[in-house]
């Protein structure tokens, strides 16, 4: 890893991430200190901080992320060239008999896993994303039953990790987190104890990553959408898998408003276009939709603890699992590879990728050899 000496403070974070438009509003820097706040999905700095090193910088998934080092810590090897990241198994899944509820976006796997892990005592609290009207808001829960109120996708950026910071400060030791790829990456950075705190103990019990191509800037999207309809009436949002190419807004009266994805994509923040990670590679388990099967999820188990919890949940009837069809797997890998290639190309073009020898502000850092391999 670049090491502790590569970590800077608020000023550099502002210059290299916020001012450069790379921030995705993941919430990793929010509520660590009094200076970072999030409002309507965007990160704000209240006052300048003069500290030369800060957790804000250390946890940010958009600055100086040493992929090889992080991969080494989590998977025992350098960053993989597989577009799906390091994993143990890939399967398809849905919530099992023990969970009979409506309102899931697809198969309900995320809710089922968090619910199960909390029930079994693997987690003492969970960091989720709820919704306040159209606005996604971080939610910290300690009661497993509350998982289901947060179900369903949001598609706009939320500072979910601010609730993780709050949970850690409140002394929780085994936190569950449902995270987008940038949030999973920030969580991994936090778990790697980048500032070398001697009393550090990993406060997470399970990181469930969400497959993600982008998350919209809430403010712009809200402005755009409120010109078309009364946003207070939206009860659910969905982006059906390709080739649908549209966003569906479920209105309270059963009406579904369709918006072409091309129109929606203009509100994707710049930060997402540099994201190399579609499948939340630094989570324990990654979950996404499954093309052609709206009742099922794609499930990628990456770590030992992730694999174990999936297995237990299946055994106890919280999860139903089957093999992933090859066509789906191929398509998933193709899509993830596309996103990764585009993002790497863009980042390299703008001098935002450093090899270990290179100095200066960067977004990613890898061994030259790894870089060759993953972008080949």
């Amino acid at each position: 890893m670049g090491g502790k000496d590569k970590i800077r403070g608020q000023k550099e974070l502002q210059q290299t991430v916020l001012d450069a438009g790379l921030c995705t509003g993941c919430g990793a820097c929010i509520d660590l200190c009094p200076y970072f706040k999030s409002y309507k999905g965007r990160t704000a700095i209240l006052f300048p901080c003069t500290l030369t090193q800060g957790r804000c910088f250390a946890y940010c998934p958009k600055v100086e992320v040493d992929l090889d080092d992080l991969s080494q810590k989590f998977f025992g090897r350098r960053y993989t060239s597989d577009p799906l990241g390091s994993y143990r198994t890939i399967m398809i899944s849905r919530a099992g008999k023990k969970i009979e509820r409506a309102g899931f976006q697809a198969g309900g796997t995320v809710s089922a896993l968090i619910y199960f892990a909390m029930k079994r005592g693997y987690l003492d609290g969970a960091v989720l994303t709820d919704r306040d009207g159209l606005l996604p808001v971080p939610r910290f829960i300690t009661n497993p039953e509350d998982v289901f109120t947060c179900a369903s996708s949001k598609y706009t950026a939320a500072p979910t990790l601010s609730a993780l910071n709050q949970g850690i400060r409140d002394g929780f030791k085994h936190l569950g987190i449902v995270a987008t790829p940038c949030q999973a990456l920030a969580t991994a950075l936090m778990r790697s104890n980048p500032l070398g705190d001697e009393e550090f103990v990993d406060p997470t019990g399970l990181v469930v990553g969400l497959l993600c191509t982008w998350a919209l800037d809430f403010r712009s999207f809200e402005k755009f959408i409120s010109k078309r309809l009364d946003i207070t009436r939206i009860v659910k949002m969905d982006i059906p898998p390709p080739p649908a190419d549209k966003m569906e807004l479920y209105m309270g009266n059963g009406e579904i408003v369709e918006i072409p994805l091309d129109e929606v994509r203009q509100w994707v923040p710049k930060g997402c276009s540099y994201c190399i990670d579609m499948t939340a590679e630094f989570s324990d388990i990654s979950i996404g939709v499954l093309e052609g099967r709206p009742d099922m999820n794609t499930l990628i188990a990456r770590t030992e603890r992730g694999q174990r919890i999936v297995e237990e949940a299946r055994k106890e009837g919280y999860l139903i699992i089957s093999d992933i069809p090859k066509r789906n797997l191929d398509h998933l890998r193709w899509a993830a590879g596309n996103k990764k290639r585009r993002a790497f190309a863009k980042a390299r073009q703008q001098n935002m990728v450093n090899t270990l020898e290179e100095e200066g502000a960067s977004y990613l850092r890898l061994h030259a050899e790894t870089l060759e391999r993953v972008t080949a």
Partner: protein
Amino acid sequence: MSYVTDNREGMQHLLMGNEAIARGALEAGVNVASGYPGTPSSEIIESLAKVAKERNLYVEWSANEKVALEVAAAASFSQLKSLCAMKQVGVNVASDFLLHLGLSGTRGGMVLVTCDDPGALSSSNEGPSRHYAQMFEIPLLEPGDFQEAKDMTKWAFEFSEEIKNVVMVRSVTRVSHASGNVRLGALPEMEVHADFRYEASAFNTDEGPAESVPVNEKHRLQQEKLQKAIKLFEQSPFNTYHGPEKPELLIITSSAGNLYAREAISLLGAEDRVGLLKLGTTWPLPPMLLTRYLSKTDTIMIVEEVLPFLENNIKILAAENAREIGMKTFYSKHEGTIPTTGELNPDIVVSALSKILKIDYGAMDSGYEKVLQMTTIAQVPERARTFCPGCPHRASFWSIHNALQMDNRRGFVCGDIGCYAMGRFSCGFNTTKTLHAMGSGAGLASGFGKLAQFGMDQPVVTVCGDSTFFHAAVPALVNAVHHNANITLIILDNSGTAMTGFQSHPGLSVNAMGDEVPEVDIAKVCQGIGAKVEIRDPFDLEETRATLNQLMDDSQGVKVLILRRECALSPERRYTKQYEMHVNESLCLGEDCGCNRLCTRIFQCPGLIWDKENNKARIDEALCVGCGVCSSICPAGAIERKEVA
């Protein structure tokens, strides 16, 4: 009994210039006094308000200077004597009426006192007011010391009645706010009956309607009055000369310049070489008097503050009379001897004088000066401009700043005139981005709030105080509502005209004289105009911040947020503590906190200090007024508050 009503003729009192002006008005038999508070003028109306009952006066703090001048004029039209006092910027506000008043003329003696602020010690400008006298063709008097401040004001009433027009008396900070010995005259026994006569024709300025029309006739009449003034000025005892019959150099000065020039001449021991013509009647200038003194020598220095007013008019006279008095060399502003900005002081005059007279005058040994400076710097603690401990403005700006930062659309605040003008400094978290005249914040916001058509997407916020709201923000608010400007007006309602010393205003239930009066409800006014109104306690930081964010998110029309909390120095809050404050040392993590000393580095309340030795925050018991606000900013919850029983 106040000094200003001591009825023992010939007694001497040490009076502040503004008290001397008030005393002069009382000796003239003033009946009605009005004004709007503003440094350095406020003590004139305050002094008169204090003795209003004793002297059977009517005294009011008006909503603004224009209204004040109208109130005073109504008394004059009703054959009473009236005085109206304001600071230099007030004359700008009153100027529209003043122009018309000069044309209509007055009946009972009427005096407008303006107190200028050269160097802008307590102002957002150092604009001159004397030019108004010339522009509006009304006579101007300038007291050159404290006795004159009294005597000249008294005479101004007689003079006004003689020429039947308003007379302007112009003071400056160093006359108004300094003190000197004043020998008192008698206070008259007054028996008056107010009656406005309007029955005669429009041409009868004593008994007809009081109007500026017909203009041709009234303007001609007004200029005749000025000619009469010149005749009186030629003989005026307020124009004095000290010095040799044939001086090498003639200094012409007025106002505080008189004090500086006298001191300079004395310091240089140049009494035999320099003549000092101190003018008290500075517009219109008495030409015969001027040519007489200009003839004494060919070298003239004009000592006056800020813009060249005497200078320009004297030079015109000198040019017109050049054949008679000969060519002159002027040391003045145009050729650079006297600066055109800032206050004068004896040093500036000494240095100019010693250069002209070629007198070697080392004001101070440079080595000594250096030692003195270093000693001073070492011993005087650095004090930034800041809000008082417990000031609601600090709390308000904290929330406003944070709301704007969180909103993240480069929103900004239009500032206004009051203590909260310091919102532009770090004590106000550098929140305000415009500062002009009273009420201009709301007016500018009204304009900014209409620029969405051209792509502006920055939220527009403005602040004004409660007194400023009544003074000049109301028309701007009406404008903003009527034109559906997308703005948020924050009214920092601290229950008084705090900056100038808690003078009453229309929102309060007590007037200048201490009588109970109906209060005008700011919230209802705003609602009546058609704005959405929210009222919050600025000490509730999070609630205030969240409300403002909501209001800024609402893009429809004018939102008003009233932040209501009494000024920390208000008579109601003074010497009371709501909370005992205490830093819990076991919770304060000092430099290890990661908060980077938010409490003392950013929040900066003087009552909360950083204890370097202990590496902890600490309450300064001597300064803390127990408002409790800082307890809600500490991320570690280390600043604890306990309600005082």
